[in-house]
C-alpha cells in the first residue's frame, strides 16, 4: 500500500504530468504523419528521456506510444494512409466508410475504443501479468509456428472471396521478408550484392509504398473522378457512442484480451494484434456480409486490440525483462540506464516504479479522449482542401518518412518500388494487406519453422506432439477448409 501511495504521489507530480502531456502531443503528431511509427516516436524520445527521472522517462514512452497508435487511425480514416503499421489492418474499411460520409463516426469509435482497449489492457497488465507472461514463455517454437500459420491463414481468408489472389499477396509478402541474411546460416538471400539489402527490405518505407503511393497515383491519375474527400464534424464524433459501446461490448472485451495476449507474446506487436483481432472478428461475426459491407465491427475489434497490445507488451518486459516488442525493448534499455532493473525483483526493489508505470497507463489512456478529440479537430481543415491538392504534400511527406527511418535514400527507392508493385496489385485485384502482413510475420514464421525442423531432424509428426501445438494445427486446418465447407453449405440448400 505504501508503494502504491508513493507511486500515486510520483505520477501526480507536476513534472510527470507535464511530461505525459507533452509526450502525448508528440505521440499524436508523430502518429498522424504516415511513415513515422510509434517505435520511431519512442526512439526519438529516448534522448529527452535521459534527462528525466525514471518514472517521467517511462511515462513519456507510455503516453507517446499510446497516442501514436491511436493517431495512426486519423490519416488512415481520412486519407487511406495508415499513420502507423498498427492501423493498416482496417484502413481499407475506415477509408471506405469515411468516403461514404461516416468519417466522424469512425474516428469517434477509433478514439473511444482505442482508449477503452488501452484501459482493458492495463487492467490485464495489473491483474494477470505474472500468469500471462509465464504462459507465453512456456510456448515452444512449435506453438509459435502454428500460431503464426493460424494468423496468416485467417488473413488470407478474411480478405474476400478470392483466396488465390489473397494467398499470392501473402506469399509475396513472406518472400519480401526473406530478403537479407538467412536466419540459420546468415547467407544473403535475394540481395543481388547490394549491402543495403543485407538487413532486409526496410519495413516502414515498404509500408508507405504499399499503402500511400498507389492512392496518390490513383488520385492524380483520375482527377475527374468524384471527389471522395470525407467530411467529419469533430463536435459530433461522440454522438451515439453510448449505444455503440453497449452494442460492441463483447467485441471490445474479446479483442482487448486478444490484443493483450498477442502483445504479451515476444515478437507480437500492435500491428499483429490488430490483424489477429480483425481476422477473428470476421471469423466470429454473426453476419459476415454486413461485416464486409459495413466494416464497423472489424474496426472496433482491431482498434481495441492494437492499443490493448501496448499494455500486453509490458507484461513480459516488466516481469521477465523480455521485451514484447521494439517499444518495450527501448523502454527496458531506458530502465537499465535509470538503474531500475526489470524482472521479478522489480516487485520487491522498485515496486513504486512498477505501480507508477501502471498508473501512467491509466492516465495516458484517459487523456487520449480529450487530446485525441483535439487532434481530430486539427485534422478537419485538411478535409476542406480539394483531395488532389493534398497529394503533393503527401508525396513529399511519404518520401521524407521513407528517408527518415534509416536516414537513407534507399528507403525512398524501396517506397517507390513497393508503391509500384502495390499499384499493380490493386489494379489486378490482389489485396495489399496480406502482403504487408507477410512482411511483418515472415521472419517469425521462418525462424520458428527452421528451429522446429532442426529440433525434430525431419520428423514432421513431432510438430503435433504438444497438445497446444496440435490444437493450433487443427484450427489452422479448419481455416483452410473453411471455403470448402462454405461452398458445401451453399450447395446443400440449393440441391
Amino acid at each position, binding site marked *: 500500500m505504501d508503494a502504491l501511495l508513493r507511486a500515486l504521489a510520483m505520477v501526480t507530480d507536476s513534472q510527470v504530468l507535464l511530461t505525459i502531456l507533452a509526450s502525448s502531443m508528440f505521440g499524436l503528431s508523430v502518429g498522424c504523419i504516415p511513415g513515422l511509427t510509434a517505435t520511431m516516436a519512442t526512439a526519438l524520445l529516448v534522448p529527452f528521456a535521459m534527462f528525466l527521472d525514471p518514472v517521467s522517462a517511462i511515462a513519456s514512452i507510455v503516453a507517446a506510444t499510446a497516442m501514436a497508435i491511436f493517431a495512426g487511425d486519423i490519416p488512415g480514416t481520412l486519407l487511406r494512409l495508415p499513420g502507423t503499421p498498427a492501423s493498416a489492418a482496417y484502413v481499407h474499411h475506415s477509408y471506405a466508410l469515411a468516403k461514404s460520409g461516416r468519417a466522424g463516426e469512425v474516428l469517434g469509435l477509433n478514439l473511444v475504443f482505442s482508449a477503452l482497449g488501452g484501459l482493458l489492457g492495463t487492467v490485464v497488465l495489473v491483474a494477470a501479468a505474472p500468469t500471462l507472461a509465464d504462459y507465453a514463455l512456456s510456448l515452444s517454437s512449435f506453438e509459435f509456428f502454428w500460431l503464426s500459420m493460424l494468423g496468416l491463414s485467417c488473413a488470407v481468408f478474411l480478405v474476400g472471396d478470392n483466396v488465390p489472389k489473397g494467398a499470392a499477396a501473402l506469399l509475396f509478402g513472406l518472400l519480401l521478408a526473406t530478403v537479407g541474411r538467412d536466419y540459420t546460416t546468415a547467407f544473403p538471400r535475394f540481395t543481388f550484392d547490394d549491402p543495403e539489402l543485407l538487413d532486409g527490405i526496410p519495413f516502414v518505407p515498404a509500408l508507405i509504398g504499399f499503402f500511400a503511393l498507389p492512392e496518390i497515383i490513383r488520385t*492524380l491519375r483520375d482527377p475527374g473522378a468524384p471527389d471522395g474527400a470525407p467530411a467529419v464534424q469533430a463536435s459530433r464524433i461522440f454522438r451515439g457512442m453510448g449505444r455503440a459501446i453497449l452494442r460492441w461490448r463483447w467485441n471490445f472485451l474479446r479483442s482487448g484480451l486478444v490484443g493483450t495476449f498477442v502483445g504479451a507474446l515476444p515478437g507480437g506487436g500492435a500491428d499483429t494484434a490488430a490483424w489477429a483481432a480483425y481476422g477473428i472478428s470476421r471469423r466470429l461475426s454473426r453476419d459476415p456480409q454486413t461485416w464486409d459491407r459495413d466494416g464497423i465491427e472489424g474496426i472496433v475489434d482491431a482498434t481495441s486490440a492494437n492499443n490493448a497490445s501496448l499494455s500486453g507488451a509490458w507484461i513480459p518486459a516488466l516481469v521477465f525483462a523480455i521485451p514484447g516488442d521494439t517499444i518495450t525493448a527501448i523502454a527496458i534499455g531506458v530502465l537499465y540506464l535509470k538503474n531500475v532493473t526489470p524482472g521479478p525483483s522489480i516487485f520487491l526493489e522498485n515496486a513504486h516504479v512498477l505501480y507508477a508505470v501502471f498508473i501512467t497507463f491509466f492516465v495516458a489512456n484517459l487523456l487520449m479522449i480529450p487530446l485525441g478529440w483535439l487532434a481530430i479537430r486539427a485534422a478537419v481543415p485538411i478535409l476542406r482542401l480539394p483531395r488532389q491538392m493534398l497529394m503533393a504534400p503527401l508525396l513529399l511527406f511519404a518520401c521524407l518518412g521513407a528517408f527518415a527511418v534509416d536516414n537513407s535514400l534507399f528507403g525512398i527507392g524501396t517506397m517507390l518500388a513497393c508503391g509500384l508493385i502495390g499499384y499493380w496489385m490493386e489494379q489486378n485485384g490482389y489485396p495489399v494487406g496480406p502482403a504487408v502482413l507477410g512482411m511483418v510475420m515472415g521472419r517469425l514464421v521462418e525462424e520458428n519453422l527452421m528451429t522446429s525442423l532442426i529440433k525434430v531432424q*525431419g520428423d514432421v509428426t513431432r510438430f503435433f506432439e504438444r497438445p497446444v501445438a496440435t490444437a493450433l494445427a487443427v484450427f489452422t486446418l479448419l481455416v483452410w477448409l473453411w471455403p470448402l465447407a462454405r461452398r458445401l453449405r451453399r450447395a446443400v440448400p440449393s440441391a
Partner: protein
Amino acid sequence: MGAYCVRPGWRGADAVRRAAAALPVGLVGLVVLLLSRNFPAIPGQLYGPALFPTALGTGLMLCAILVALQAPGPAHPRASLRGRASALACVLAPLLIMVAWDAAGWPLIAFGLGAALLVLAGLRPLPALVAALGLAALTWVIFAMLLRVPLPRGPLFFLPY
C-alpha cells in the same frame, strides 16, 4: 498497369487480362525457385536457407495457375492525358528526389517538386508557388529542426538545423 491497356469488348481482352494478372506472379515464383537452387545447404542438416523460399516460390506458381483459371476482373477506363502525366510525375518525383538529393538540398527539391505537382493537380501557378514555399518550410521545420532528420540544405547552407 497492363489492365489499363486492354480495350473492353475485344475478344482476346479476357485472356490478356487473365495473363496480365497471373503471369507476373508465376514469373516471380519461377525466379525465386531458380535463385533458391543456388543457396548452400547446412552441413549435417536436412534443411537450409533454400527451404522457405522454395516453398514460397512453389506456392506463388500454384497461385498464378489458380488466378489464370479464374474469370478476369473488370477492365479499367483509360485516364486522360493530364491524369496520366500527373501519375507519371508522381512516379518520377521520388526518382528525382534521389538524384538531386545532395546537390539541390531538400528545401529546393520540396519547393520545385511541390509546385510542379500542385500545378499538375490543377492549382494555378502563383498559389502553387506560395503553397510549395510553405510546404518546403513546414517539412524543414518538422523533419530537420524538430525531428533532427539530417536533410541536405543544398545551396541554402544558411538554413538552421
